């Protein structure tokens, strides 16, 4: 068995105490400086019967005698310092064992298993080797997607897109930590491996044609990388043209497609009272589902409004306020009395063909009301269709529709506890993959998202968060929560993320892979035009001789 064990890695210390729930305490060897250790790194523990694989979640200083702290020895003398280090004073690590690996032949076959016990006293703790990490996270084949590398290691960490899309997932992190960057990477992974089709509600036009890197450099986004697999839809053609982005379709939404439910979603952003929201349902009953908004917006005069209020049994002020608030809808150029082409149909057709759809909001991205309105309206209809089709697939012998991943930003606006019960996004998050639709939510304030929704997210990918409540909310229900907390709070503010949940075997801190260089594009399968042409020529030559 000895040959399986890699003893080449640096020995760090021995297990001193611990528990399964809280993790184990490791006493650092004298020769190891605490300054060489970082939380988030991996270690292996050689137990008597098994090898444990875990993550360092805390580093501490300790001393045999508390008096040493009050009367420090003369450490200016190198001799005394050398003696004291590692004996009277020593470092302690807190390690959270997550998996057992390769102790015997059986466990080698089974692969890494979740831990059910802790290593025995004084088991040796070593830095994890590249092979260990590979054994845990799986080998990454050439065309497979990986998200990055563990801290200070070269091994690629695979994020399995198939597993990722099985449940809803979330990308979190405070502003400027690279959420968009990560989300784009994940979307690329899903496209690269064809795990699902994407519908991205692209608030700031970052996913479709090109995005900006943290340094302000332009980077290729989905359409450029996968021209034949991605369609860019836009709500704002003018803006797209100004950015020199060729779009595949301009989305227009008719007043007749807006339902009172869609307005109800906006109650917070538009500042609508409950009474006003109720009034929209009455209006819909009066004018009909398809005509209410147009008819209501057409009312100009005060008297006319009062008359309507009276006949509906509404308070005049309520209706007047509602009218005023809804006035903003008129300013939205994509809202037209009747849409010339059915956007939902177009989106569904694309998705059915396996084409990923990025809906750019153009200048409307800064208007949260438009974003909520459109995302909610489209998603509700699309989800409805998906549901119908899945139900039909159950009854008849037809294929289920392709798995669909819907990406939304500013997710707390859709999924806060007040409205998550009513919105379609709350429903999707809760019902998991029943109807083949899952969410990829992107948010900087996870504490604003309903706890129930958060608990349903299968995989969470989180960049640095520093608000206590946000951290708590992201880590709710995760084993080893308090340990991961210290890891999360200490992430670098760039290019680092903690990933845990369904799609990875254990929590992992990654340095996200490089993205933006020609080499990185190539890794995603992107070929420059010249190269493409050459390949086509070669193929033709092969074909025709």
């Amino acid at each position, binding site marked *: 068995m000895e040959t399986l064990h890699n003893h080449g890695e640096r020995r760090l210390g021995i297990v001193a105490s611990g528990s399964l729930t809280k993790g184990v305490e490791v006493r650092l060897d004298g020769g190891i400086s605490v300054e060489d250790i970082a939380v988030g790194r991996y270690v292996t523990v050689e137990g008597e019967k098994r090898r444990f694989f875990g993550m360092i979640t805390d580093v501490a200083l300790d001393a045999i005698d508390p008096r040493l702290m009050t009367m420090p020895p003369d450490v200016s003398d190198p001799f005394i310092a*050398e*003696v004291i280090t590692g004996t009277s004073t020593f470092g302690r690590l807190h390690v959270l064992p997550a998996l057992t690996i390769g102790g015997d032949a059986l466990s080698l076959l089974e692969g890494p298993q979740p831990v059910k016990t802790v290593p025995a006293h004084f088991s040796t703790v070593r830095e994890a080797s590249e092979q260990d990490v590979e054994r845990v996270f799986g080998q990454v084949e050439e065309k497979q997607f990986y998200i990055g590398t563990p801290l200070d290691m070269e091994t690629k960490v695979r994020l399995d897109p198939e597993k990722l899309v099985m449940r809803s997932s979330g990308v979190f992190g405070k502003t400027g930590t690279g959420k968009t960057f990560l989300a784009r990477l994940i979307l690329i992974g899903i496209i690269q491996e064809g795990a699902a089709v994407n519908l991205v509600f692209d608030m700031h036009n970052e996913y479709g044609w090109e995005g900006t890197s943290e340094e302000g450099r332009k980077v290729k986004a989905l359409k450029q990388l996968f021209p034949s697999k991605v369609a860019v839809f836009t709500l704002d053609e003018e803006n797209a043209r100004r950015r020199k982005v060729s779009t595949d379709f301009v989305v227009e939404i008719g007043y007749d497609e807006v339902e009172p439910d869609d307005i109800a979603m906006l109650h917070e952003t538009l500042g609508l009272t409950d009474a006003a929201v109720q009034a929209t349902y009455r209006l819909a009953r009066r004018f009909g589902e398809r005509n209410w908004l147009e008819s209501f917006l057409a009312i100009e005069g005060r008297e006319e409004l009062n008359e309507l209020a009276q006949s509906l049994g509404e308070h005049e002020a309520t209706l007047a306020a509602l009218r005023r608030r809804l006035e903003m809808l008129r300013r939205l150029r994509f809202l037209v009395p009747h849409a010339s082409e059915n956007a939902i149909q177009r989106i569904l057709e694309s998705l059915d063909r396996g084409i990923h759809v990025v809906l750019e909001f153009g200048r409307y991205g800064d208007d949260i009301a438009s974003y909520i309105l459109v995302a909610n309206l489209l998603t509700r209809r699309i989800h409805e269709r998906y549901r119908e089709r899945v139900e039909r697939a159950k009854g008849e012998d037809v294929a289920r529709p392709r798995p669909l991943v819907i990406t939304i930003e500013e997710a707390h606006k859709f999924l806060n506890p007040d409205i998550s019960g009513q919105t379609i996004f709350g429903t999707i998050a809760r019902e998991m993959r029943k109807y083949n639709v899952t969410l990829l939510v992107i948010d900087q304030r996870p504490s604003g998202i309903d706890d129930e929704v958060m608990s349903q997210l299968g995989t969470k990918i989180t960049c640095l968060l520093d608000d206590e409540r946000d951290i708590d909310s992201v880590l709710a229900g995760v084993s080893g929560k308090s340990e991961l907390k210290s890891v999360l709070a200490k992430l670098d503010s760039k290019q680092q993320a903690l990933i845990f949940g369904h799609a990875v075997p254990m929590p992992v801190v990654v340095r996200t892979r490089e993205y933006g260089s020609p080499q990185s594009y190539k890794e995603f399968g992107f070929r420059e035009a010249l190269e493409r042409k050459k390949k086509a020529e070669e193929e033709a030559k092969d074909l025709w001789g």
Partner: protein
Amino acid sequence: MVDRIGEVIEASTGEFMAQCYELHQPPPFGSLVMTKEGEVEIYGVVSGATTTSIEPGRRPIARGSEEADEEGIYRSSPQLAKLLRTEFSALVVGHRENERLHHYLPPRPARIHSFVYLCDTDVVALFSQSLDFLSILVSAQGQADELVAASLRHAAAAHKAPRDFLVKAGKDLAVLLGGETNRLNTILRRIRG
């Protein structure tokens, strides 16, 4: 190989006292000495030395007022060397039985009149490869810290890499004196060289 320096005149399991053959020539404080009990070699660390009158109660008197130097005193009263004696005590720190070194107390104390030898550097280096005897020294009566420091300085001199040896010993001491930071500091300051 080893220097014969005296004879055991008082012995217990943990300690023995020896009289030096040469007046004023006790082995250095903290050095390693050896005596025998049958086949067993008993090792001790010199923990102190005294020179006194051979008759208890009869103290020497000052005699040098007429002499030009100290040596002159002994020249003019040669009997002095016979009336005085130098003794040293040693703390037993280990023994060798059947060719094996043990760093703990021997089964029996040394016999009276056993010869006592001063160990040379090879033996010191061999004996101090294990520092288990330190625990005996740190719990010694009296000037234990001085004794530990002195014995380590001696032992270090016998090693090829004295500093490495002292660091290792220091680390052992740090563990032994876990709760006694002051003593540790005292000793470390005496051995840092």
